[in-house]
């Protein structure tokens, strides 16, 4: 043993197999069903958006790593691909690829790299990109087209939530059917149309223990309770919690955006507070805000509280004093 390399390290000497790239690629796999449904419903438009977002994210990340003199291997950890995919999933299919690229550059540069790269950003990068696009190009970001499966001859089309908010769909009886919401045969962003595909991906992440189960469950509970109270009080005006869960960006937000490890709390109690807050704010925006949809802003809003939550929701150490 004297004439060869020996490893002198501090314990533990065993290591679990899971690693950052494995976690990231698991997220990419979990997005597969939603990607396939978006390709199925929006065909070539979806493909172009997905590819341009991923390519722009990877290029921006590479540029920043180069400028910051960081090793380029971080490019392969999969996190830039996820940001690209997630951003594309939140874009309207009719959006032009140039705008998508701008969003992707903003997501990577301002959402992630200026904070110091992977692990240091405060806000979910994909949502930063989307929020930028929404503010800078509000019209392009709210122009919806129906999926190729819908046999209607119109150029613009309302999302189920837009329909609910601006067309008074409950009273008119023109609410999108739960069945269409579930399978995805409806208007909306690339990835938010099919509830089924998102649930499949989310279950995979839960099963693979990539995401903290408290977050989707907490968001689900708080939105259900909040919308449920209004629905029970006045079913003529408000729609059921089930509709709110299946429609819009709720599922992609609850399973894929809010659960981003980097921008969600690390403590179990913090995760509960964060999740309940997101669900509540989604409900508030959908009912009382100016937008039909509030998932993006509610997640970004709760992201700001994460450092604070991490600090004040410290778990009780074994043998430590119980509170109260």
């Amino acid at each position, binding site marked *: *043993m004297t004439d060869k390399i020996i490893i*002198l390290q501090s314990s533990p000497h065993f290591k679990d197999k899971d690693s950052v790239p494995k976690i990231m690629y698991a997220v990419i796999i979990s997005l597969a069903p939603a990607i396939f449904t978006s390709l199925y419903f929006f065909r070539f438009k979806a493909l172009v958006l997905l590819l341009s977002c991923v390519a722009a994210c990877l290029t921006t990340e590479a540029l920043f790593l180069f400028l910051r003199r960081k090793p380029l291997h971080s490019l392969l950890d999969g996190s830039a691909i996820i940001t690209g995919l997630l951003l594309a999933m939140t874009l309207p299919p009719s959006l032009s690829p140039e705008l998508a690229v701008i969003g992707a550059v903003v997501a990577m540069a301002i959402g992630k790299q200026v904070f110091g790269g992977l692990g240091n950003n405060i806000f979910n990068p994909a949502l930063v990109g989307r929020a930028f696009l929404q503010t800078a190009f509000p019209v392009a970001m709210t122009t919806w087209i129906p999926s190729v499966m819908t046999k209607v001859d119109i150029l613009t089309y309302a999302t189920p939530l837009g329909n609910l908010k601006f067309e008074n769909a409950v009273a008119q009886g023109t609410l999108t059917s739960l069945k269409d919401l579930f399978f995805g045969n409806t208007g909306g962003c690339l990835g938010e149309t099919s509830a089924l595909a998102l649930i499949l991906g989310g279950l995979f992440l839960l099963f693979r223990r990539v995401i903290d189960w408290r977050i989707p469950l907490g968001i689900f509970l708080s939105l259900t309770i909040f919308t449920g109270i209004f629905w029970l009080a006045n079913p003529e005006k408000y729609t059921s919690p089930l509709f709110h869960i299946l429609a819009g960006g709720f599922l992609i937000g609850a399973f894929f955006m809010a659960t981003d490890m980097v921008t969600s709390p*690390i403590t179990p109690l913090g995760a509960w507070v964060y999740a309940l807050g997101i669900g509540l704010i989604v409900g508030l925006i959908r009912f009382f805000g100016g937008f039909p949809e509030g998932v993006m802003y509610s997640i970004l809003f709760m992201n700001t509280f994460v450092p604070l939550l991490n600090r004040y929701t410290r778990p009780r150490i074994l043998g430590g004093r119980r509170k109260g």
Partner: protein
Amino acid sequence: MKVKTFPHGVHPPEFKESTEEKAIHSMPPPDKVTIPLLQHFGSPAESLVQKGDEVYLSQKIGEGQTLFSASVHSSVSGKVLSVDMFSHPAGYPVPAVTIKNDGQDRISTEREEAKDPFSLSPEKIRQKVKEAGVVGLGGAAFPTAVKLSPPNDKPIDTIIINGCECEPLLTSDYRLMLEASDEILKGAELARIATGAERIIIGIEDNKKKAFEIFQEKIRDYPGEAVLLKTKYPEGAEKNLIYALLRREVPRGGLPFDVGIVVQNVGTAKAIWDAVHDGKPLYERVITVSGQSIKDPNNLLVRIGTSFESVIEFCGGLSEDANILVMGGPMMGIAQWSLDIPVIKGTSGILAWPAPPPRLEYSCIHCGRCIEHCPMVLVPTRLAKYVKYNNLTEAENWGILDCVECGCCQYICPSNIPLVHWIRLGKDKIISLKRKKNP
């Protein structure tokens, strides 16, 4: 059957198959032993011998000077070659006595056997245990006599015998439980008498069913019970074991005494019996020699002071691919840089395997897994960051001193951050600052 356990922890691969069926084999004493006068944390024992002295097997060669230091005995008979500094497995040099073995195993006549050890007074038991230099054999090597002397204001009700052996690869405790169950129980009974406890609980992980069945049967003659525990790391960590068995929490910074408990490892229990009944000092112990790079893995009864090199040679030597040598288990053991290191009282195993090259370190992605697996419910990622940026006050506020260095956080960390290393560094810095303040 419902098994007891504690929250959090990890499930590393066990790799116990290669030695669990290997009966304890007595290794012939080597030509030369080097016995460190410091076997554990604390102050070294004072040497009682000089170069050139003739010593007997089991003769006391080092006298513990303080409460927290245990006596050391010769593990062979022969001539003292030197009393000098020597490499300790913990990685620094300590004073050590090197003895040339004359191969006779001559015993001095001073050994004092007890006819009826169970009628001895607690004081007498403690004194015999102290005289025999018994220390905890689980790894930390805390002097056993101290553990058997609870303060008067802290009544002890339960002796827990730790038969978990939750470290992967190690099987020495398991073999001891199969082969020396009577001595273990008798030693436990002596510990019970010494501390005035009412009962004995022996906790065994459910991957050692055979041992559990033996103890379940034999413990009927004693006040106590055998309890099956879930196979999970670190089930055998003192505070977690107490929680798993009795749902009592040892207060932060406190000792098991504070909740009326004394925990002894199975090997220690046997050593207590040997010391009290036979007057036999702790000069040999059972170790597991295993790992992919050990040609003939085995469980050996080895004299203290035998070099790792002779132990490994006895086990067929190392294969070419070996690149890590560890004393202890793979989760908490200490990596060694040389084979010229002696077996000490706290050596539970000698392991060697071809370790994969260190993996790339990523920055923390805040997955929270270190928190979810920390058996002490700390926030390891935060502690590591505080130490990294030298914010020791906050590190202490966040409980860095409660860390038991079990390694669960680093085992599970997907970013490969050396969390335990940072935490150890921080603890060390904090403790030395405290020493400077109040020497």
